[in-house]
Structure formats: C-alpha cells, structure tokens
C-alpha cells in the first residue's frame, strides 16, 4: 500500500518536474499532469479498496518521524480515502476536460491545477490546524491562478474578489488558530480536546474564530457573493472542480473541527447550513444564468451537507452514509453539470435545449438533476430518507420542515430548467462536442449511477436498483433505438407477464390495483401502437411510472413504498412533459408531487421511528399525537396526488396537455396511486383526531367539495381534455368521499370508482385525444357533428357518459346505488348535500362533451376527417365491452373486495346471492335492469324504425330556422360558453382562488429571491462586509442561543 503522503508528494514532484520542463513541451507537461493526478487517484483508490474490502485500519503518517505535537501528522482513514479519491478523480477529469486550456496556458497552469488538487487533498488528510491553514491558503492562491484559465473576462474581477475576501477570512483563521493554540497548547486535531477550549479563557472565542473562518470557505449565506461570481465566470471545468473538491475538502475540515468543538457547535453548523440551503435556493429561483444558477445550487447543497454535519449527534451510524451520499450526489451532479455547461454555448438556461440532439448528454443532464434533487435510485435519496428518519426520530421537526422546503424550492428551479432543456426550441448554435469533455461528463454520469448502486448496496433497506420493475423500466433506456412498436410489444408483454407471475401474491384490494396497472396499463399501451418512429424517451418514462406503480402496490415497508412513490412521480413527470405545451404544467405537477412526497416522507419518517414493523402494522400501532400528525401528513400527501381541491391546480394542465395515449395513463391509472395510498393509510389507521378535529371528517368535506368544484369547473371548460381533467378532480373527490365515509359500502363504492374511473376516463381521454388528433384542436366549439365521421369514438363517448353519469343500466349506476346505501349509515349528513349536487353537474359537462364534439353542426374544415386511428379506437372498444360486462356482472370484481373488506368493516356488507345484490337498505339487480331496459328500448326502437323506414335523411342545414336558413356551421353550432345560465347563477363558485393562492406564493418566493439576490452587489468590499456581518450574526446567535 502506498503511503498517503505520496499523494501530496506526487503532486509536488509533478509540479517541480513541470518547472524543469521546457515551455514548449506542453503535451509532455500535460501528460505528466494527467499522470500525477491519475497516480494520486490511484493511491486513494487503493486505500478505499483496502478499507472497503480488507477492513484496513486507518493509517497515521508522521512527518519528520516525530509524534505530534512536534511534527505535523496526516491520517488516512476511510473517509479521507473516499474524499481524496473523489477530489483526485474530479481533478483528473477536470484536467482532461481542461486539455485545450491547459495546453494553451502551459505548464504553469498545470502546476497550479496540481497545487489546487494537492491542497484539497492536504485539507482532507492533515491533522494539524496550522497545516490546514497552509493548505487553505494554497487552495486560495491556486484558485486565484486557475480563475485566469477562464475565457470569460469577468473572471479576473471574480478572482480578485475571492482574494480580498479570503484575506479577511485567513486573518480570522490565523487569529483563531493562534488563540486556540494559546488555549490548548497544541495545534493537533488529535491532541486538542473540547474541554481545553472550555477551560481556557477565550478558548471558545478562539474556536469560534477558527470555525467561522473554515465555515466561511463553505460559502455560507450571506458571505458567499464571491463564490457565486467565481462559479459564474470560472472555466466550467474549474467551477466544477471548485464546487466538488473544495466543498468536499472543506466540509471534511469542518467535520474535523466539529469534533474539537464538541456538541455545542453542532447546532451552529446546522443553523448556518440550513439557512444557507434555503436562502441559496430561494435566491436561485429568479436566476437565468446557468452557471450562476449552478453556483447557487452548489452553495445550497453544501449548506445542506453542513446542516447534516451538524446532525451527527443523531445520525449515529448513518452519519457518513448520509453526508457521504449527499457529497457523492453533489459531486457527480455538480461536476457533470458544470462540465455540460461548457458544451452549451448559451448562458441562458433556456439555451440548454441544445442538448436535446444528443441522447447521452440529455440523459446525463436528467441524471444529474435527479442526483441533485435526491430522487431514487441516487444516493441523495437514501440520504434524504435516513436524514428524515433521524430528524423525525429525535423530534427535530422544524429542521426537517426547513430542509424539505428548501429541497422543494431547489426542485422547483432545477425542474424548471430541465423543462426548458427538454421542451424549449432548440437554439441555432450546436453544442461543441469536445471528446475529452464528453469523456469527463460520461465519467460523471457513470459515477452518479455507480454511487446509486453503491449507496443502494450500503443501504439497510436494500438496493432500489435490484427491483425487477425498475430494472425493466431502465432497460428501455438501452432499447430506445428500437422502433416504437417493438418497444411497445416488449412493454406490454413485460407488464402482463409480471402480472401473471405475481398476481397470486396480492390480496383482493391490491389485486384490483394490480389489474388496473398491469392489465389496464397494457390496454392503454395498445393505443401507443399508433405512434410512429422511435418515440425516444417515451418508454423509459412510461415504464418508470408503471414500475413505480407496480412497486407501490407490492411495497410492504415505508422505504420501498416511498421509493415506488418517487419513481412513479418521476416517470409520470417525464411522461407528462412529453406533451407539446405541457412544460409549465409538468413543472407544477412535479412541484406539487414532490411537495406531497415530502409530506409523505415526513409522515413515514415519523411513523418509522415508532416501530420497525412492516408498514401496515407500524401504522396500526401508532397512537396519540404522533398518529394524528402521521395521518394528516400522509393524507395530505396522498391527496396531492388525487388532486383534492386546493391541491388540484396541477392536474388540468398536466392531463390536458399530455399526449393522446399519455392522458389516459396519467388520469386513468396514475391518479389511483393516491387513492391506493389513502386506502392503505385509512385501513391501517382508521379514524384519527388531530387536536380534536376528526381528520376523516375533514376529508369527507374535502372530497365533497372536490367533487362539486371539480365538476363545476369542468362544465365551464371549452377544452375537451381539460374538461376531462377537471372531471377527474371531481371523480377523485367522489372516491375520496367514499373512503372518508369509513364504512363498508363507502369503500366498495370507492373501489368501484377506482375501476370505473379507470375504464371510462381512459376511454374518454383516448376518444377525446383521437378527435383532437384528427381535428387539430382540443377546443370543443371548433368541432361538432363528428358523429358520422367518427362513429366509434362517438360510441365510446356515449357509453362513457352514460356510465359516468350513473344512469342505469350501465355500471355508473352501481356506484350511485352503493353511494346511497353507504351514506345511509354514515355519521355525517351535511357533506352529502354537496355530493348530491355534484352528481347531476357531472351530467352537464358530459353532455357538453358529446354534444359539442359529436352532435350539432359539422364544420367546413372537418368535412373530410377520418375516424381516429385503429390503435386508438381498439382500446376504446375494449373499454366499451368492459363497461357493458361490468354493468351486468359487477360482482366479478366487487364481490371479492366486499368479502375482503369484511375484516376491516364487518358491518354493512352486501349480499350477493342470486342475481340481485342486496344491502341493508335496498336491492339492485343489474341483470334484470339490463334486460328490462334493453327490452323496452329495443322494442320501441324497432317500432320507430319501422314507422320511419322511409324517412328522408337530410343534411345539417335542413333545420327549421324561423323560415331563414343557417349560413355557416360555426354560427349555427351552439357550443361556446354552453352553460351560460349556469355561469350566471353559480359562476362565482369557480373563481380561481386556489390558483391565485398558489400563484401568490410562487410570486412571493420569486420576489423574495429577486430582492434577496440584490445583496450581492458585485463589490468585493461588500462581500467582505457580508463576511464580517455573517461573523457577527453567528456570534450573536451563538452567544445568545
């Protein structure tokens, strides 16, 4: 094993060697640099290997052969090895990336780069405070030098600013060091003790000065203006290196200091970290320059890790796992993103859409964003989970809330950026594909995924990447070059196959969801055969969503449930994002979803700390106030997904703007995830009170209001798919209402809604999508009279609306019947009034859908359109058949569920004897109804047809029009603002209060960010003052608190 000091020695040797080189031997010099960095990385790697595999002991290296305090010593432990490896590898790939710049600037630049890497290594390795200072100063000087590599002219000023601020910082550091020495008598980390500082006069202040100076190197808010300028103007390779290496090293230095300072300093670190995290994310919101945005993000991430360092007291064994996970994610993502920014010509974040031409790079970009936001399977996710569990377990709720709020804001701007990159028009400039740069980026990408795998393996919860559905989904990334129909077949076969293999494992409740996901999903996928070409990106996203859903219903513990939740969220986000104009809607979707996910995370974390049991049992065993909190958090989280009123504003856009075959997926299937969550939650926990309020009662009201307002909004909608989307809000409100009734039939009704809603909403969305595809618009008043041209779509919609509106004999009626029976035994009566009202309103929007699209007057331009494509029609016809079948024999699905529910709600089941279904209050015979209605209908129809057998078929303008005649179909088709009287009477109910509320919040955040960032005036003197102010504020809080 090579001694760790060789790392530093190698760097020094290479530097001196470079000094000996002729100025013209640049290639050789570059070779030496690369070799040195590679060698340094190799040594670190060797150590990491030794620690990880052979369980080696940490090695102390005594310089000058003397024990401390008489000489400086270095240590190589596992964290040091990992960090130096990270630093050296980043250094190596940065050097690779910097090839052109280094060759241009010559050996001096290479030497400076080596100094920088060496200094960072030194910061990690050294156990001597003064030595730490020296390495810091070396890093400062090297940074100053490397800043000049940039092609950006402003980099000079940025470097100078850094020098000025670092002058002030180093003065603090030096004074702190010397006073610490004065207090403790030694300068060695291992020999100093927290007691020393406490005992000596001024010892605490000495430590404070030292600590604050080192922390300042972490760019805490607000003392970080200089760092942002550096990030913005430096060469991207160096910015990446600076963000990764110096952050990693300095964080470790802080970690070492915190051991010295003792537990009293942990809250200080946490406070600084969390404030920085939130503030930097907030300030990043209005940012449009990509590198500066990344700078803010770096600052935020480092703040988060600093906060984690401050939580080492509760993290225990997970400390390195969490902090390391965050550092690893940050490193791979930030290096990768900075390196990517070097390829993009535009400095505006919209310019990143140029990446779209390169599948690998765009995949890298997506991965990096996922790494940063802590999505599964990346290490940040594991870290987030452990951190949340630890924080919740020790009662640090406010901190957890703050971190999650910050993370949500971060996700906001990162996903906005992602949306721009994926959706905005590509700029004319092509990206520069420098092979060495691309190599570096691919290395970062590989590192990110390697970290993902590694952290999965280290995790106590098992590796996410080992889940079959996820692997199946990810495999589509590799298959993306295949034509769409092949992938579609693979997807269908895979899903159905998975179902066949696993369906026996599900209980009836889960089985219903499993059928909807794994059988219903492929049915919708049939429509995807209509797509031509390769449809890049569709299948990985769709399969990711289905994988998440599949894992969700298979999940038995909190962690895997949450993983599945996040996976389906991400998958559906990308799926929704595919729509033509869906970028803003996808963003609001992901933000609401992540917000909801964070609530769920908090709830799970709270619950998980109580008992290590499987999820269901753990939830069951919760008691007292915690139970109320958990229930509330989880309920709100799940209701975000079902788009309960108040949390619904993401849904209409997201569902309406999605592609034809995506809308049914996200509406018919994805929404069920929220319901499933609610069902599991309510089955496990029953009714919970939260400070005296019955949450389930509140949910009853929320469900009723969602049903009413969703439906009301739907009837005023001109856009067919938006109408259906609003209708989903209403339908989900109904289902929520059923669940919240908390009785047997309420649940049967909710489950019936789950099935029915899947069938008819998928059918209607496909139909509307097919029509929109043919007519080129989704505005219903622009259609009309399509019945003869698109008869099959019409039949689908007709059957759909009969089913939705609950008119016998179709299956919707069963839902209504069960609903009435359910409310008869419910406790609360007032919310029923609202649901009574919302039922007929559903009828209004459905009629509008069928009338304005298929009936009425056919427009000029639509005279020659054809029926929707076969593959879009096929699933619709399947659904028509299903609806009919389900109408005649609802028992097929419901009977088993009914029995299953007996164990939870023993009262009030249904009697399925014979052909009549009997409840406590009434009876219902679907077969008889169907036969009677068909008989009456059929005989009357035959009679009328017979009488009118010779009726003259007329055309659309052959109407009696007050002796005049219509001139244009547009002016004859009564469609726009169809329910004007309703608007007049009840339009006040659908004022967009909720939208305004969320918009105001977004506005406030943005404005706060925009005002806040004006703090950074660009003047180094201000920055230095910021630092001083920072010191004073922290000092004030430290002494005050």
């Amino acid at each position, binding site marked *: 094993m090579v001694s760790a000091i060789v790392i530093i020695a190698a760097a020094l040797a290479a530097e001196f060697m470079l000094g000996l080189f002729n100025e013209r031997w640049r290639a050789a010099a570059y070779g030496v640099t690369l070799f040195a960095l590679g060698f340094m990385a190799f040594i670190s790697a060797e150590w990491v290997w030794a620690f990880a595999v052979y369980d080696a002991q940490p090695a102390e290296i005594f310089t000058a052969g003397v024990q401390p305090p008489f000489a400086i010593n270095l240590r190589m432990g596992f964290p040091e090895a990992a960090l130096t490896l990270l630093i050296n590898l980043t250094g190596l790939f940065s050097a690779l990336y910097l090839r052109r710049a280094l060759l241009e600037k010559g050996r001096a630049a290479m030497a400076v780069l080596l100094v920088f890497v060496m200094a960072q290594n030194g910061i990690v390795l050294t156990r001597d405070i003064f030595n730490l200072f020296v390495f810091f100063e070396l890093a400062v000087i090297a940074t100053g030098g490397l800043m000049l590599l940039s092609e950006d002219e402003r980099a000079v000023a940025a470097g100078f600013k850094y020098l000025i601020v670092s002058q002030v910082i180093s003065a603090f550091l030096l004074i702190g060091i010397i006073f610490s020495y004065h207090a403790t008598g030694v300068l060695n980390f291992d020999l100093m003790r927290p007691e020393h500082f406490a005992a000596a006069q001024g010892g605490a202040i000495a430590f404070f000065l030292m600590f604050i100076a080192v922390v300042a190197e972490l760019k805490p808010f607000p003392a970080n203006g200089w760092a942002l300028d550096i990030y913005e103007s430096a060469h991207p390779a160096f910015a990446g290196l600076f963000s990764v290496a110096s952050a990693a090293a300095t964080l470790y230095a802080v970690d070492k200091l915190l051991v010295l300072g003792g537990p009293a300093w942990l809250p200080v670190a946490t406070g600084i970290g969390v404030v920085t995290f939130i503030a930097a994310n907030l300030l990043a919101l209005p940012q449009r320059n990509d590198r500066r945005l990344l700078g803010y993000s770096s600052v935020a991430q480092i703040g988060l890790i600093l906060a984690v360092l401050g939580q080492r007291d509760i993290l225990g064994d997970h400390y390195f796992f969490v902090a390391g996970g965050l550092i690893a994610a940050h490193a791979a993502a930030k290096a990768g993103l900075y390196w990517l920014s070097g390829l993009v010509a535009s400095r505006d974040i919209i310019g990143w859409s140029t990446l779209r031409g390169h599948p690998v790079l765009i995949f890298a970009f997506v991965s990096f964003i996922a790494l940063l936001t802590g999505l599964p399977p990346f290490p940040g996710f594991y870290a987030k989970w452990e951190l949340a569990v630890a924080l919740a377990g020790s009662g640090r709720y406010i901190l957890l809330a703050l971190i999650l709020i910050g993370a949500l804001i971060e996700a906001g701007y990162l996903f906005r950026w992602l949306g721009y990159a994926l959706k905005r028009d590509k700029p004319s400039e092509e990206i520069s594909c420098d092979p060495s740069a691309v190599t570096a980026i691919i290395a970062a990408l590989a590192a990110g995924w390697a970290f993902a795998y590694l952290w999965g393996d280290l995790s106590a919860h098992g590796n996410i990447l080992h889940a079959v559905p996820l692997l199946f989904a990810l495999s589509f990334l590799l298959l993306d070059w295949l034509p769409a129909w092949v992938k579609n077949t693979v997807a269908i076969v895979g899903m159905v196959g998975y179902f066949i293999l696993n369906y026996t494992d599900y209980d009836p409740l889960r089985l219903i969801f499993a059928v909807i996901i794994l059988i219903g999903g492929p049915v919708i996928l049939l429509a995807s055969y209509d797509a031509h070409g390769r449809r890049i990106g569709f299948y990985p996203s769709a399969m990711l969503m289905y994988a998440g859903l599949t894992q969700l219903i298979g999940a038995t513990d909190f962690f895997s449930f949450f993983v599945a939740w996040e996976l389906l969220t991400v998958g559906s986000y990308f799926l929704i994002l595919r729509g033509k104009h869906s970028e803003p809607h996808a963003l609001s979707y992901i933000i609401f979803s992540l917000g909801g996910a964070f609530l769920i995370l908090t709830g799970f974390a709270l619950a998980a700390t109580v008992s290590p049991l499987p999820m269901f049992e753990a939830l069951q065993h919760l008691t007292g106030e915690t139970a109320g909190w958990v229930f509330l958090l989880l309920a709100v989280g799940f209701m975000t997904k079902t788009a309960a009123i108040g949390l619904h504003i993401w849904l209409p856009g997201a569902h309406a703007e999605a592609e034809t075959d995506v809308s049914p997926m996200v509406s018919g299937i994805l929404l069920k995830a929220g319901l499933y969550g609610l069902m599991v939650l309510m089955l496990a926990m029953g009714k919970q009170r939260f400070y005296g309020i019955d949450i389930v009662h509140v949910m009853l009201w929320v469900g009723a209001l969602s049903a009413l307002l969703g439906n009301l909004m739907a009837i005023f909608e001109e856009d067919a798919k938006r109408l259906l989307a609003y209708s989903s809000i209403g339908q989900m409100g109904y289902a929520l209402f059923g669940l919240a009734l908390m009785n047997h039939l309420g649940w049967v009704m909710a489950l019936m809604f789950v099935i029915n809603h899947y069938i008819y909403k998928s059918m209607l969305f496909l139909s509307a999508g097919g029509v929109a595809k043919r007519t080129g618009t989704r505005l219903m008043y622009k259609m009309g009279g399509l019945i003869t041209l698109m008869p099959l779509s019409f039949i689908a919609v007709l059957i759909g609306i009969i089913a939705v509106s609950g008119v016998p004999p179709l299956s919707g009626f069963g839902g209504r019947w069960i609903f009435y029976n359910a409310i008869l035994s419910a406790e609360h009566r007032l919310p029923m009034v609202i649901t009574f009202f919302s039922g007929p*309103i559903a009828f209004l929007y459905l009629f509008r859908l069928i009338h304005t699209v298929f009936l009425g007057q056919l427009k000029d331009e639509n005279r020659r359109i054809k029926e929707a494509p076969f593959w879009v029609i096929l699933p619709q016809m399947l659904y028509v058949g299903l609806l009919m079948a389900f109408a005649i024999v609802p028992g097929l699905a419901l009977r088993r569920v009914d029995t299953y529910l007996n164990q939870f709600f023993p009262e009030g089941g249904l009697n399925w004897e014979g052909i009549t279904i009997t409840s406590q209050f*009434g009876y219902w015979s679907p077969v008889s109804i169907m036969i009677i209605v068909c008989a009456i209908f059929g005989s009357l129809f035959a009679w009328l047809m017979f*009488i009118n057998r010779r009726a003259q078929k007329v055309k659309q303008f052959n109407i009696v029009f007050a002796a005049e005649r219509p001139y244009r179909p547009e002016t004859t088709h009564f469609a726009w603002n169809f329910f004007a009287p309703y608007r007049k009477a009840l339009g006040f109910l659908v004022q967009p209060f909720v939208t305004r509320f969320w918009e105001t919040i977004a506005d406030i955040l943005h404005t706060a960010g925009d005002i806040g960032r004006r703090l950074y005036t660009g003047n180094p003197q201000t920055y230095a003052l910021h630092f001083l102010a920072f010191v004073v504020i922290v000092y004030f809080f430290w002494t005050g608190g």
Partner: protein
Amino acid sequence: MQFDWMKIPYALLTLFIVINFGYLLNSFIAKIAARVGRRRGIPIWQTYIDVAKNYGLRTSITHGVMFYLGPVFRLSGGVGLLLFVPSIYGSSMFSNLSFAGDLILALYFVFFGTLGMALGAAESGHPYSAIGITRGLSQVTAAELPFALAIFSVALQYQTLSVTDIVAAQQGGILHWTLFTNPLAVVAAMLSFLGSMMRPPFDVVLAPQEIPIGPPTEYHSSYLALMQTNRAIFPIAKIVIYMNLFFGGATDWPTFFLKVFLIYMWSVFVGVSFPRFRVDQSIRWFLIWAVPIGVLSIVLV
C-alpha cells in the same frame, strides 16, 4: 331464481292503464286551464287524436341515428320509470318490475330519458335545441337536488330504500303519511316537483316564443307521437314516486288516479299563478328556497 313470466303481461297492463289515464289527464288538465280562462277547451279525446294524427303523417325526415334514438330513449325512460316502481301497494299484479331495483334505480332512471332526449335533439344540429337542452339540464341539476335530499331524508327516516317498504310504513291512516311525519322533506320534494313538470315558472326550457319549443324543435310525426306518449306516462311515473314516498301510496286504482291527479294539480296551480323564471333565476331559487328546507329535513330526521 324463478322468474314469474306473468309479470310481463301485468306490467303491460299497468302501462296500458297509465297511458290512457295520462292522455285523459293531460286533456283534462288542459280543459281545466281553458275553463279557468272561460274557454271550452279541447275535447277530452284531443290527445288521442293528436297522437293518431302524428302517426298518420306520411312523411318524415331524419337527421341521423341519434335522432331516432332521442324519442326512444325518452319513452324508454318514461316506461322504465313507471315499471320500476310499484303502482299499487299490496298488489303483486301491479308491483310491475320493481324487483329489479329500489328507489335509487327510479331516481337515476329519470335521467335516462333526459339524456336520450338531449342527445337526439342535439343530433338535429339545431341551435335552439341545444339552447333548450342547456337550459333544461342546467335547471334540472338544481331542481333535482331538493328531491334527492328529500329521498335521502325519507330513506333515513324509514331506514330503507325499498319503495314498497316505504309505502308499507305509511299505511294505517293519513297521519302516517310522510307528509305529516316528515313535512320538511315533503315540502322540499314538492318544490323540486315544480321544477320537473315543465310548467311555469320553470318552463323556460321550452319557451315557444323564444326558441321554438326548445329541444323538440325538429321532432315531428311519429317521433313526436312517441314523445307525446311519454308526455302522458312520464309525469305520472314521476308522481307515482312522490305518491309512494310522501302521500301513502295507493292501494287501488281509484286512489291512484285521485292522488296522481291532485299532485299534478299542485304544479298546475303554481304554473297558472306565476310568470316564468330565467334559468339562472330558477337555479338560484331552488338553491335558496328548496335546498335549505331539504338540508333541514335531513338534519332533523
């Protein structure tokens, strides 16, 4: 389960009785209205003649398949509604096809005809039809609400959804009627009743002067004849529900005829006394006056 095939002829018998009763009732009420205006009014057979005339027309036109289906849906709705509810309490002969479902079935089957009519009328492509439909649908959502509340209230009161059981509970004297045991629900339901009878003040749907009779503008000859038949059956079918729920049902045909007539007259009285509401006014009227009574009834029951 053994199906009693005799139910079919019995049901057809009920249908026959009710159709004739309906025709005569319509003429009779028109005659009453005429006498109030000091006219002689139409002959009592006029409705029969009109229907016969409409069947006797030699030509007809069609706008498409849904145009046929409109009246068929409409009449099926009327017939179905009639047959899903027992007409005469205690008579297995006139219990019709009520084995198929309970009150809720009847409540939702009302929409069957509405839906079909709306579809058929819309197929004609006539803007007046569409306007009439929006008015009708808008109004019916608000008008049905108090009725739904009343049904809920009554079901809660008797703890059953079976019409037969509800009637059974009201037997044994006039004071057992829901009218007296749960007056608020009855008031709410009777206000709602006004909205569903297409008489003033809630007849803006048809509005002959403004949107030539709204939805059926394009209907004629045998289509219209079917709808006239429905016009005879449907109000009665609807009234039968009211009668069974609130007014003790009927144990024989004379009582049936009398009660149906009296309940019908309620909407006639109101209709001749009040001018027409606009749709938004009637929606608000139902929400402000009828719904609170219904809410009160379900809270108090």
